[in-house]
């Protein structure tokens, strides 16, 4: 295969592309247990996406200075509860943070 791959830093790229390899489509076993686990991961990924979007939106409003002290207080408590709930769910389903990064095609990596 006559491919030109030219680099001035093979070690650095080796390290980074190994990290990126995780983003490649994984083989999915069709047996029922794994499909369920896959489904749990999928649901948690979507919940996590919404949670992170909400957090980001809140931060934008804090940045814009459009929130009162009480609003900041309430948002902080809500975001805290959401984050803790997510940690709980991840624990229940035995899912690690790195696993919640599904490539949804045109939407790109979610997080």
């Amino acid at each position: 295969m006559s491919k030109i791959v030219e680099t001035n830093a093979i070690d650095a790229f080796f390290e980074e592309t190994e990290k990126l390899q995780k983003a490649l489509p994984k083989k999915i076993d069709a047996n029922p247990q794994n499909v369920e686990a896959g489904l749990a991961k999928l649901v948690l990924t979507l919940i996590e996406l919404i949670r992170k979007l909400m957090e980001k939106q809140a931060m934008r409003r804090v940045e814009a200075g459009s929130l009162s002290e009480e609003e900041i207080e309430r948002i902080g408590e809500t975001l805290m509860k959401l984050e803790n709930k997510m940690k709980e769910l991840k624990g229940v389903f035995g899912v690690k943070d790195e696993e919640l990064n599904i490539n949804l095609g045109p939407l790109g990596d979610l997080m």
Partner: protein
Amino acid sequence: MAMYVYGIIDSNDKIDAFVTGLDGVGVYNIPYRDIGALASDLDTPVRDTDEERVLEHETVLEKMIECFTVLPMRFLTVFNEKNNVISMLNEHYNDFREDLDRLHDKTEFGIKVIWPGAVIREKIANAYSKAQVSVPSPDDSPGKSFVKKKFETYKINKEFEEEADRRIAVIDNFFNRNVCEKKLERLKTENMLLNASYLVDNEKQNDFKKAFEEMRAFAGDLKYLFSGPWPPYNFVTKTNTRHDRE
């Protein structure tokens, strides 16, 4: 006997076995109007994790881009019989024809750039804490200190991404005049500043390479990876199409 399809070409010529593909079997062209599907007979099952087969797939395409305009298929596109391939070509003819016209005499190149992400993030974090506007205090309620913590991370991330965008713009600027299309991906990992795919007119290939040398000289301590020529994987528009047979 199944058929493995490698890609779509702008030719209805009968190409027979001057290239071998998966299983060492000859690749042929299945013509439809003025285009065709490159295929070979597939006997054995193929796993989606079969790296050797992916390389065979790629080898076929690289030989083909020397003679034709090729729309590369994603790995593992298989049909049960020739008629199904032809009905697929019929269904997507217009999109394929458009792509083939658009990609005629053009080649894809890849440029990846690594920067010291962790170092830059730390610099930004230090600058932020020095200029601390909302200092966390022990009197803060849990909700408020949560917000302050998240806000700090948010600001640092934002600055980090903006810095990345600035540097990417500088890099990309070297190539603008010499490319037809581009796909830029920012911060695939913290250190992978840029993952770029450029579609270059064959006549401008030398200019493009010269631009790359200029960028190298300018970029100094950045780490780069240049790859190509590639079949235009990143520039075909027909993606995520479900072939409706039901």
